[in-house]
């Protein structure tokens, strides 16, 4: 498995079959987070998962990451069942999850070290990926010195550096301001176009989903199911104000609105939707 040449190991498809998650707790009723769901993601697809809060999209992502065991069904990456977290299934977290005791370059090199790479090789490779996100000059900085946008760029460099087969992103730009967010969306697209990893990207923003993804999946209010599975064939870079872009955006919004109405009724108006 440890192949340290700069050759990419490539990417893999994801197969989700009859996957369901029910959270059991001692104090309260079991919560059905995800209804049996089947989905096929092809290798190299950029999937965006959108849906109301608590629709199970993060649950699905956490199953793919190996953090949560499904109650029924299974998820496979390249034909192999996901049973536990794996460096081959990379993840980018909303709150960056950088290691504050390491400087920038050692954060990027963390996974490479675990893959058995020597210090010089992994620093060289980490530098390459820091350059890719435009942070070459920040290699020796402490991560606490960076802004939120910079931190997420380090996290993106960190996940791509280990060359995983799939990359899971849990609202990675959710905590960033609008301008930084647009910049990072653009940068992520560039990187993805270069090495075509399978990306599963959870977001609250319909615009972000249509801008980035090759396929948008809308989930229903809890318990989550697939409500809409929409291919986005627009060429990059996409124009926010283009006719087809806005048509797709509206299509997805309409579907979401139905679900939002349901979840509002369910929670007595407690649910909120952030864009």
């Amino acid at each position, binding site marked *: 498995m440890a192949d340290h040449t700069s050759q990419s190991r490539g990417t893999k498809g994801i197969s989700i079959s009859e996957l369901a998650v029910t959270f059991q707790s001692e104090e309260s009723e079991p919560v059905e987070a995800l209804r049996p769901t089947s989905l096929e993601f092809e290798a190299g697809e950029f999937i965006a998962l959108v849906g109301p809060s608590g629709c199970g999209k993060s649950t699905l992502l956490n199953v793919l990451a190996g953090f949560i065991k499904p109650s029924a069904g299974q998820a496979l990456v390249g034909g192999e069942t996901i049973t536990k977290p794996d460096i081959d299934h990379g993840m980018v977290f909303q709150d960056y999850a950088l290691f504050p*005791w390491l400087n920038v370059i050692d954060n990027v090199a963390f*996974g490479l070290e*675990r893959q058995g790479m020597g210090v010089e090789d992994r620093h060289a490779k980490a530098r390459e990926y820091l350059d890719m996100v435009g942070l070459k000059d920040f290699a020796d900085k402490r991560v*606490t010195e960076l802004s939120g946008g910079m931190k997420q760029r380090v996290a993106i460099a960190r996940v791509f550096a280990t060359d995983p087969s799939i990359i899971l992103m849990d609202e990675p730009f959710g905590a960033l301001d609008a301008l930084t967010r647009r910049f990072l969306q653009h940068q992520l697209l560039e990187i993805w176009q270069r090495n075509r990893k399978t990306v599963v990207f959870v977001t609250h923003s319909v615009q972000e989903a249509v801008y980035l993804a090759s396929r948008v999946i809308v989930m229903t209010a809890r318990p989550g199911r697939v409500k809409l599975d929409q291919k986005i064939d627009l060429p990059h870079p996409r124009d926010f104000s283009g006719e087809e872009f806005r048509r797709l955006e509206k299509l997805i919004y309409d579907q979401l609105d139905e679900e939002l109405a349901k979840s509002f009724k369910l929670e007595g108006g407690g649910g909120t939707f952030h864009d």
Partner: protein
Amino acid sequence: MKTSVKTAASVLPYLWAAIFIVFVWQMAVIFTQAHVALLPPPLLAAKTFAELVVNGQLFVHAGASLGRVVSAWLLSAAIAIPLGLAMGRWRRFEHLVDPVIELFRPISPLAWIPLAILWFGIGETGKIFIIFIATFFPILLNTVSGVKGVDPVLIRAGQVLGCDNDRALFRKVILPAAMPTIIVGLRISFGTGWAAIIAAELVAAQVGLGYLIADGMEVLRSDLVLVGMVAIGILGVLIDAVFRTVNDRFSWGT
């Protein structure tokens, strides 16, 4: 240049404090007209201090006390840190061990002195035992809370970045993440150990700063008592300064 200025600035308050204490001391001597065996003037104490420095006695006593504290403290850390890591990580293990810890914790290390003497005599083992008890709990409790305080998302990040077993996760994520809190525990425990060794030596020792004080009392040499006390204070401040430097190196901010 800059660092020497900074050091001078941080030492200055201690200097003022020292001058203030000596002033009050001298006033007390003048106004109470105390017998020299009960309260010697600062100058006499300073002379005795210099004498003990010159003949090396002070270093022998301080070295003995420090040596006992350091060895017991290291022993303590070697057991408390792994135990604390395990307790912080595994709930069930914590539930098992915690009641035992909680029952022992309120018992002052000084309460163990009689048993230590009965069991180990007045040799080194008994004192190491006392300091071990004095330093054990602060290290343990800080390690436990340090591990519990590790951001779960960092653990997940470690897992998806190739820490696929507990050993790797401890070494690469949990231990470094908990390190600032563990260092605080090490620092606090050195303080409690330093306080306890003096008590242990007061009761049973042939050498050590506690012995210097106890012996000074027996032979009515309060200047010796005061020299011992001053040495304890100075060493305590110096040790804490060392820890603060180490602390700064490990506190990567939050």
